[in-house]
């Protein structure tokens, strides 16, 4: 007994364990495959490719009106508004027209030109955050959203208002 042990320690006898160097392992991939075949269609079905976002509208609430009954002359003097008309953009202060950006030749609104013009206007209205969009009736929703996108980095407080004609009763700042 003891002799065998000593012999083993000395490595005189090969281990009984098999040293099988070349293994012939076949991964069983078929179950994985079935799993994937189930998972992929399920995820494809629930996949959301178009993410929704929201554009918050600032409606004047009854509380606001009570709190701030009328803009001070300073505030109204500094206000900037953009008229979106059929002929193009017009950037207005409370006193006069600051800039005009006509439509492009193909009939679309010149968003780049408008962005540049607005950035220029922003220089003289540094502290002003609010802007009013005066929109004519026939202007398309898509153009309004894009105009809001252009305004947002410079003037985050965007309000909508009906066009240059007399504001409709009760419509408010939108």
């Amino acid at each position, binding site marked *: 007994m003891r002799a065998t042990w000593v012999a083993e320690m000395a490595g005189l006898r090969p281990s009984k364990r098999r040293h099988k160097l070349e293994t012939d392992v076949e991964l069983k991939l078929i179950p994985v495959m079935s799993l994937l075949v189930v998972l992929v269609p399920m995820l494809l079905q629930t996949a959301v490719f178009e993410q929704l*976002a929201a*554009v918050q509208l600032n*409606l004047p609430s009854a509380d606001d009106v009570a709190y701030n009954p009328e803009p001070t002359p300073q505030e109204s003097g500094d206000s900037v508004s953009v008229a979106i008309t059929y002929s193009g953009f017009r950037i207005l202060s409370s006193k006069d027209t600051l800039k005009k950006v006509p439509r492009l030749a193909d009939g679309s609104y010149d968003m780049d030109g408008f962005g540049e013009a607005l950035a220029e206007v922003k220089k003289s209205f540094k502290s002003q955050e609010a802007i009013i969009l005066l929109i004519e009736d026939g202007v398309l*929703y898509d153009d309004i959203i894009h105009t809001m996108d252009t305004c947002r980095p410079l003037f985050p407080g965007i309000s909508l208002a009906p066009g240059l004609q007399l504001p409709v009763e009760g419509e408010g700042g939108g």
Partner: protein
Amino acid sequence: MTLNVTSMIDIFTIILVFLLKSYSAEGHLIQIAESISLPVSESQEEIHPAVSVGFNGDALYVDGKLLIDDIVPYIESDEMLIEPLYVVLSESASRLQAVAEINEAVDFTGEIILQGDRKVPFRLLKKIIYTAGEAQYVNQSLAVFKE
């Protein structure tokens, strides 16, 4: 003979990772009618589930259900209020307010989501904004697609 599926698994694994990445447990919480194609905006604001009003140049939907199937007369009329929409919205507003009174966990915030087709004129939009405002839905947001 064994089927050589390793490369197929490669493909599927990549697709799986990609899909899991775009997987959102929320999905579309608000329903959008098929015929409405929302405009695309840079806005990153998240959308919260709320009462939704969908509209295109022909029809108007409330919570995905058709309410007005011919909206043209409403666009053309000088009346700011869209009567059927006002009726439905003020009804749901009063229902929500009643719930909010009983259940403290519920608050009536007057949230509403306007889903407009990109080809809708402002004339219709302002009427809907006005009508929803009249029906006590003052916390309005416009639904858009993220860029």
